[in-house]
């Protein structure tokens, strides 16, 4: 059974009266422990697909299954499902400016469990294991872009999600930091069997993944 499996996902947008077909029946599968890249031209629909896979948006038709089951449709249950099973990393890290690194990482766990001290403790361990033990109490504006993205990755991992979706996680970083982040993701995949789906238009990154798809004309193609 696949960890993630989609069936004929179709998504259209209404753009000033004109119907844009962005996703045209996507069938996509990810196995547990895989590390998958999706590339494609800008505007080809990569983010749209990722939002649907991450249950942030709904397709016009088709469905998404996790471990063979449909995700709940009711809003509260869906929020809870995302909280427990899915991690996100975005190009812009969207850390909370008024909270330090440790609190930012703890946040999804705090939302899920309401247990502040436990969340903070786990956040601290997690940040330390990612080599950020000296940045625990720094605020986002005191961190470099690469460090901020490390915090965002730690935040994505804190609830031990089945899968982490990363939308151009290195899009904002220079080559050196970009390489560090990808190495970290590779490490997490290797050591912890963490599943990743990564959107990138950097060929040097997609080539390091086990599988790489290209999005074109509303369809995914391997390679």
């Amino acid at each position: 059974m696949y960890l993630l499996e989609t069936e004929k996902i179709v998504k259209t947008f209404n753009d000033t009266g004109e119907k844009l077909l962005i996703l045209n029946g996507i069938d996509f599968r990810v196995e547990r422990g895989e590390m998958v890249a999706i590339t494609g031209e800008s505007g080809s629909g990569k983010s749209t697909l990722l939002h649907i896979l991450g249950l942030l948006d709904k397709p016009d038709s088709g469905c998404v299954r996790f471990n063979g089951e449909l995700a709940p449709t009711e809003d509260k249950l869906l929020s809870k499902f995302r909280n427990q099973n899915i991690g996100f990393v975005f190009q812009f890290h969207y850390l909370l400016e008024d909270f330090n690194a440790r609190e930012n990482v703890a946040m999804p766990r705090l939302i899920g469990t309401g247990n502040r001290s436990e969340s903070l403790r786990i956040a601290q361990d997690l940040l330390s294991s990612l080599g950020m033990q000296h940045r625990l109490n720094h605020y986002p504006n005191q961190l470099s872009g690469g460090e901020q993205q490390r915090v965002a990755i730690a935040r994505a991992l804190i609830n031990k999600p089945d899968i982490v979706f990363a939308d151009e996680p290195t899009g904002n970083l220079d080559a050196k930091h970009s390489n560090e982040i990808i190495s970290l993701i590779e490490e997490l995949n290797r050591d912890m069997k963490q599943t990743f789906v990564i959107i990138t238009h950097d060929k040097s990154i997609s080539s390091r993944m086990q599988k790489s798809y290209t999005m074109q004309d509303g369809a995914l193609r391997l390679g």
Partner: protein
Amino acid sequence: MLGVVIAVAALLVSFALFEGYENALKEVILGANAHVYIFRSGSDDLSKEDMRRIREVLDSQTEISTYAPIILTQALAVNKEQHAGILLRGIEPDGEELPTAFRKYVQTGSAELSNPLDTVIGVRLADQLGVTVGDSIKLVSPMRTRITPMGIRSRSRKFRISGLYQSGMYEYDSRFVFTRLETASQFASIGNQVSSVEIKLHSDEVENADALAYEWEKELGLGFQVVSWIFYNGNLFTIIVLEKWILFIIMSLLVIIASFNVVSATATSLMEHQGEIGILKAYGMTNANLKLIFLSRMIVLATIATAVGEAFGWIMGVFLTRQTLYQLKGDVYFVDEINVHFSWQNCLLVFGVTMLIVALSTLIPLRRISQLKVVEILRG
């Protein structure tokens, strides 16, 4: 939040001023006056026989704190060129506590009317006539004026001023002249009769005065008329209370206007934190919790602003009572001193109203949180 501070200060101080005024007026009117009055029907005086009947009825009433007969007669007070219309009040000076409290208001001289021709007059009347303790004034009774071959003869009498009182109530301080019952009776030539009986109630019965008056009138039977303070002054207080609340509503509008800033500040804050809202939603935070975060932050700010505003209003109120530059016109407002009354209930009321307004001003723009879609935020 500065607007909220100022609005809260204005709201609190205006409310305190009005309530201070209301209390001062009540204190003077209810403290200095009797609460229930008994007259003979028509314009007759009460005879000895009437008095016996009244005592019979009143002595068994537990609501009464004290009662006493009184003679009221109009007169003209004259000192050299100065004169003023006054109301002579003949009282039993030996009564421990008189229905008409005047003793505690006596500021110079003595409250005791030890000699038959002693009088205690109000400070404003003394000013008007240019007299003080120890001086004498002539009282002329207009009722006893006769035309004789020698011209108009009025009955007049010299009194000695033994004390001055100041109640703060302009009307009283400029009109009442107290003397002994027998003296007043002689002056008005009414023999053994008295004008009325004044009754002071226990303080928790004051608001029942109307019902008690009705009851006692029935009990006394035909020929007596029993009237409560509510009949004379009740309307005044109803109007004051009404005005107080109208003022409160108007001043609350100030807080509402000040809260327009809260609306725009919240809206701006929402814009600035859109990305963070998006990620929190992605990680499963509910709209209700998101709103709570913004709301609680605003409530903390508003609490501080309200506390500062209330402190500021309190200082302003104290200043108003201390200053001497501006005094109320006694003949317009009855009391000439500015009084403020702060109570924790009022502070709480102002606090509650402000919080309610701020909370609503925050929640209105926060409705947008529910409409914000994560994907739209992420797309930028």
